[in-house]
């Protein structure tokens, strides 16, 4: 009797198995190669449509909008989620830490040669001498007064400086509050007075900056604040940013003269322009 065995029901594809898998491998190699090439070509063509200097979308047509954010230094590093600057004036390791942090950022301000030299010509601008297309304005580190690196930004005296900066947005031109009689009601009194005290109208073409404690208690703990440069703002001649080489965004140093130690103080800084 010769009944076929049950095992013969399942036939295993052993024949040409390696050959087939090699063929499949080759197919995928070519297929993926083509795919990658296609994507690469598309990407390349696409990138050719972009200008290396001028963003395709600017201000309102871009997502970045026309409302620059206000940034500050030093930037706490060990905890990314927090913006708390925890300072011990008597602890050298602690304040050196902050010092290094600021210096990392200010390096290019102190030694402007470090940033790549382009065709732009660095010029000391004033309110009357605005930069031309090919010029960029100098940022004078001396204008920060006591908040200088030589004095460790006063951290060791427990009267720390922080630096405020405005985010660069290509082509953004501020709309200044240059009329002392037309200031927003929620502007701090101190700033209003400050603006009122400036007599030359062209010098009022600034993006003003104000800092104060978030709550009345914070205001009390914070104590007095001093701004450098004393104009208390970003001078208007730095704007607009045109991605010129050598451009440095202006900074405002804020010095908290005598903050009460041992507690957390919430500070709120604002930049003031009609379009912020």
């Amino acid at each position, binding site marked *: 009797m010769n009944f076929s065995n049950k095992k013969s*029901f399942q036939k295993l594809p052993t024949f040409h198995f390696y050959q087939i898998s090699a063929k499949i491998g080759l197919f*995928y190699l070519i297929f993926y190669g083509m795919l990658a090439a296609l994507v690469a070509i*598309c990407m390349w063509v696409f990138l050719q449509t972009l200008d290396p200097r001028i963003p395709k979308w600017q201000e309102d047509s871009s997502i*970045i909008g026309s409302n*620059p954010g206000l940034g500050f230094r030093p930037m706490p590093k060990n905890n990314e989620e927090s913006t708390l600057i925890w300072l011990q004036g008597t602890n050298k390791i602690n304040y050196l830490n902050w010092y290094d942090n600021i210096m990392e950022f200010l390096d290019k301000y102190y030694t402007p040669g470090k940033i790549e030299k382009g065709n732009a010509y660095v010029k000391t601008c004033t309110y009357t001498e605005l930069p031309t297309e090919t010029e960029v304005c100098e940022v004078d580190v001396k204008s920060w007064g006591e908040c200088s690196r030589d004095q460790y930004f006063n951290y060791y005296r427990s009267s720390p400086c922080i630096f405020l900066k405005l985010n660069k947005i*290509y082509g953004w031109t501020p709309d200044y509050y240059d009329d002392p009689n037309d200031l927003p009601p929620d502007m701090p009194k101190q700033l209003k007075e400050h603006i009122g005290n400036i007599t030359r109208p062209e010098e009022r073409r600034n993006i003003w900056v104000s800092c104060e404690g978030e709550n009345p208690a914070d205001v009390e703990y914070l104590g007095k604040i001093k701004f450098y440069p004393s104009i208390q703002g970003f001078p208007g001649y730095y704007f607009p940013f045109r991605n010129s080489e050598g451009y440095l965004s202006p900074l405002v140093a804020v010095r908290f003269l005598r903050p009460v130690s041992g507690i957390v103080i919430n500070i709120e800084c604002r930049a003031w322009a009609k379009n912020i």
Partner: protein
Amino acid sequence: MASLFRKKVERKKSLSRKEISLARLENFRKEVITDTHSVALGELCRRLQTDRETGLTPEQAAEILAKTGPNILTPSTRTPEIIKFIRTLIQGFSLLLWIGALLCFAAVVIRMITTHETDSDNLILGCVLVVVVVLTGCFMYFQEHKSQKIMESFANMVPPKAAVIRNGETMTIMSKDLVIGDLVELKFGDRIPADIRVIHSQGFKVDNSALTGESEPQFRGSECTSDNILETKNFTFFSTNAVEGTARGIVVACGDQTVMGRIAGLTARLQPNKTPIARELEHFMKIISVWACFLGVIFGAAALAMNYSWIEASLFLIGIIVANVPEGVFSQFLYQIHVLCLVGLLATVTVCLSVTAKKMAAKNCLVKNLEAVETLGSTSIICSDKTGTLTQNKMTVCHFWCDNAVIHADSTTNQEEAKNYTENESYNFAEKTSLFFKVAVLGFKILMRCATLCNRAEFIHGEEDKPINLRQVRGDASEEAILKFVELSKIEGSPSKFRHNNPKLLEIPFSSTTKYQISVHALENGRCLVVMKGAPERILARCTKIFINNETQELTDDLRRICDRACTELAEKGERVLGFCDLLLDESYTRNYQFCAEPPNFPRRELRFVGFMSLIDPPRPQVPDAVERCRTAGIRVVMVTGDHPITAKAIARQVGIIQAKESIDAFNINIIETLPAFKDKAIVIHGSTLRDMTNEELDNILYNYKEIVFARTSPTQKLQIVEGCQRLGEIVAVTGDGVNDAPALKRADIGIAMGISGSEVSQQSADMILLDDNFASIITGVEEGRKIFDNLKKSIAYTLASNVPEILPFLAFVLGNIPLPLGVMAILCIDLLTDMLPAISLAYEKAESDIMLRPPRNPKTDNLVTRKLYFLAYGHIGLIEAMCGFFIYFAIMAEHGFMPCQLFGLRQQWDSESVNDLRDYYGQEWSYQNRKELEYTCYTAFMISVVVTQWADLIVCKTRINSIVQQGMGNMILNISLVVETVVACMLSYLPQMNYLKFYPVMFRCWNYA
């Protein structure tokens, strides 16, 4: 203390109840072996302590009743509904979803505890998962909530009352009070209340068709004719019908012990196999869940190893990681994506199945079990019952022999041709036999006269306008067939009129000893005619003359031999042959002559032979065609019947189940043992052979022979055959109509019952009911089932493809440290909103051209999800989609100043809230909020690109072998789903409530690329 003890005992009992149930099942499987029908009556009475005249005494009966329990069918143990419901809720796949949901909620809770934020993404996802689980759970529960009724339908077959003789008195009792040993009176029209050995009978006939599949009523007498209880003539079975006569018998088995009770028990307790589609889905889910867990664990671990090795891998901390650390969250989401894809699939499967079920219902197939629809498509063997399924379960005249010629009577349901017999001499029926037949018409007329007169059947009044074959007839099945034939041919006008004109003077009814029936009629011309009908050999023996070539001749030995040959020829076709003869009495017998039956006072010898008629239960007209189509579709059709092998074989030949020229008849085991393995031969196997066979031998036969007929099989043997096929890995469909088919129907991968002729039990056990009894509907079902499988495959390919562009962004995010290209909510939207409808719409796709030409799929290798499909979905389409998405992502980023090369490694800064001045390529500085807005834009763009590429994917997946030009875009639901998908995507992107920003060039460019 006592109560404690009792509790323990109860628990023990409930445990063993399961075992009892199992043991019962095994017991039911066994063939009935008993000698109650063969032992001497006196011995039986002694054994049962009963008396053959007076029966049991009431006291005895009460005692036995208390001991054996009532004469009812014990229902199988039931699990409480609530437990069943919970069980469906936590079945394999649902469990996966629960884990997913739990992970989500754990993440939410931990996030809440640690940072007091509400993690809305996880919360929504978790809720969605829970809703899905509960919905599918409910759906599955209602799907499964119906197998309960089998026992009830069996219970309906039990007659409520029975007439017993106790202590010599006849009384009517409830049949559940019947006990073994009771003496029972049976009369026509009764339903048999238990298994009964007949001790007296007067023309007692029972209809066993429900149990054995024999179309004709069977005689029941007191003598034992066979060792096999199903064959013997002195035994009547529980719940069969008595059609004629009266009888008295002793109850030898009650309730579950009866033959029918065993079938009922077997049917109710059999666990049907998992349907192939369920197996496939399980297989797929297994792959997916392993995949999901694997990805989740791997990436979780990788994240741990990469950045968080300082965290010890304690479980609690892992929990925190899952909730707080991006990598943890995303490893979890990798898992969730897969799970979500399953959700879509499940919905698609359900829709596919219900759409098809609806379509089938329109074609008169009622689908009881949704999954059965697909099963039909993968069917590789159909085990078909003969009686009532392949045949009409109605005796019909199919041949007649007169004037030395066999003439085929039209045995289709309508018997259109038969009307042509009416025409007289000029008649042109059967041109083949034309000249000869013109001569033969007279002979035909004489045969018809004989058939009309010697017939006791009558049409029931009031149905004259119905078609003849639908009219009800009072009388024996074969006489009914002859009457209808006569009525159709109308050769002598209406038979009732003809009979009225030629009144019956005397009748000697048919008896099993004489095997003929005689009646004497007064003809219109005043003379008398004796007509006789019966078994052909008896009839021929009484004849000395024959009507042939238009004249009466001497019946010479040569002619006798011709007649004999014709008779055997017809008998070999499985037909039941009846002989007819008549004798015109001489003029001394007049209308007023006192004919007398006992003793007969008229000549009953030297008659004139007029012809044969042969009857068969003809196949349904659509069956041969359907069987042929099964063959082309690679499905074997095996006949499994309780009827006699010769009849079975004849029908098998007629419908095309046997096409081989040679066939082997295996009536006993010795033949089987000496069989060579000829694959091209057909084989007919007798039930008694099957009984002696081992499972292995049966498997070998099933494997080696393509054309198989099983005859004289008992219900358990049918089950055995089905299980044998299943052992070979075949997907078995069983068609049947009788109670004897019920266990096989239940056990089969798909049981198909007949809607009109099927018994209630068979319908309850089946998964599908053919409402019009049309065997051809099965073919439609097969086609639909295959289509479902194809469409499911397409749907899965479609759904899987979008997984790649969902996962790759995460990979790039984790490994390449780029800002996240595709957010979690966007993934949810793709999976549950935009992808769902197109995936479902593929269920409406029409079949491809080769669907009925290829063999049924091999359940072992042709899975729902094969490697090929994975390669196609993941390797080709998915990757293209992902590339497209990434292209859009990088394009948008670049347009906003973040060049592709710059993005790698940017993630830490990008996602840090304290970095408020991230510089881009143009020196612009981005605040956190701006960056996030940009990121969300990318999500949207990525999502839209996925949607757009999914259009193409949908069209790619639409066809498998046909090209899209062949297939066309006729699937309106698919087209609509394309539109809806797009609209949903647009709504998601442009509605102000959505936090995503609009971005018009995205779609345009993606269009070009895709």
